[in-house]
């Protein structure tokens, strides 16, 4: 069963919708625990938020915007802080995917590579599940 819209198209459509609704006020950045965790260089929250919005629009992204999107750990504190009630956590996820090259553009954020991911998952399964469980549950 095919989805009516591909994931790439969904990313583009949602990015455009959310970027248009974002006012770039920076409340999300102020609520985020990660700048403190990272010791990011101080930057005005609206400027950092503008970087995220630029990423959603496929526009050039400032270094501070890039750093913030790349440091998102999905804490979700941004959502409660947004005066427009936007799903900022989703915006950051979409921005991160785009900056990693999800739509075929050159990556501007490092792409964590784990070529052995699927094989590792299966190796651990063989170690922790019985053969019957593997047959039923994998």
């Amino acid at each position: 069963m095919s989805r009516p819209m591909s994931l790439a198209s969904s990313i583009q459509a949602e990015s455009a919708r959310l970027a248009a609704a974002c006012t770039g006020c920076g409340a999300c950045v102020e609520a985020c625990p990660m700048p403190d965790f990272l010791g990011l260089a101080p930057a005005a929250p609206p400027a950092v938020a503008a970087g995220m919005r630029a990423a959603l629009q496929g526009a050039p992204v400032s270094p501070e915007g890039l750093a913030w999107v790349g440091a998102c750990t999905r804490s979700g504190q941004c959502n409660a802080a947004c005066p427009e009630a936007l799903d900022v956590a989703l915006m950051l996820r979409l921005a991160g995917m785009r900056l990693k090259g999800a739509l075929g553009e050159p990556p501007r954020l490092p792409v964590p590579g784990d070529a052995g991911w699927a094989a590792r998952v299966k190796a651990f399964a063989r170690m922790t599940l019985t053969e019957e469980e593997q047959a039923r549950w994998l």
Partner: protein
Amino acid sequence: MALTFWYGCNMTRHGEVIRLAMRLLEAVGIEAEATGGPASCCGSPKEADARISGGMAERTVARFNASGTPQVATWCPSCHMNMQDWMAPGVPRNFETLHLTEVLHARRAALRPLLVQPVPARVLLHRHLGFDGRVPVNRMVAELLALVPGLTLVEHPLAVPGHMCSSLAAVPGALARAQRATLEAMAASGADTLCTLFHSCHRDAVTLERGRDLRVVNWVHLLAMAAGWPVEDGYKTWRNAADPRAAVGEAGLAAAGEAGFERLVEPELRRAPPV
């Protein structure tokens, strides 16, 4: 089948948690099947390529649709959020998505009579800031643990960033800082046990036991202990062994395959702990 327990990918390190979760579901009267691994991936590991990630997600939704399951209970917060954010929207589905904690919490009246074995422990719940806004796991697990006789859940405001520890592990220094804060919270609250919520937190937190007088368990382990069921934690044993290869043993090596163990498993088991 009343429910599919979608345990995700990386949970295969903790087969006993899958097994115990299935036993808990059965114990509260839910007929369930489990599924996970790469064949039912949410697409998250390949998020840098929308074509691949979307294809994986589409395949998994189609698999659930074809199974006829009316409910899919997630374990992994990444899977859960992906299902809500882009796997399900716009795709015809014939199932609803819940988190395992929601399922068991809703049946806690049925769970209560099973939890009769005292589990003397002062427990700090390893809460995260993220995901709790989608599913109130921090509150629901605390209320499930309140059913365990002998267990005291200590009060502490600590909630570390991220939706689970794997997200912190990707930010240099962040996981170590979160683990140090967790140790400080345990000391301040007099906790002797750290209770993890998710698999990725558990696999990173188990090393906190090294050289410290504390233990790290998952919430499913604690419920199983209270039910009087045998509880093992093979991953923790291997990860904290001086010689993981010896701890895994010949049977484990044969199961993983020598080459697979050496290339895929052993480096993780020997990796230096965050703190």
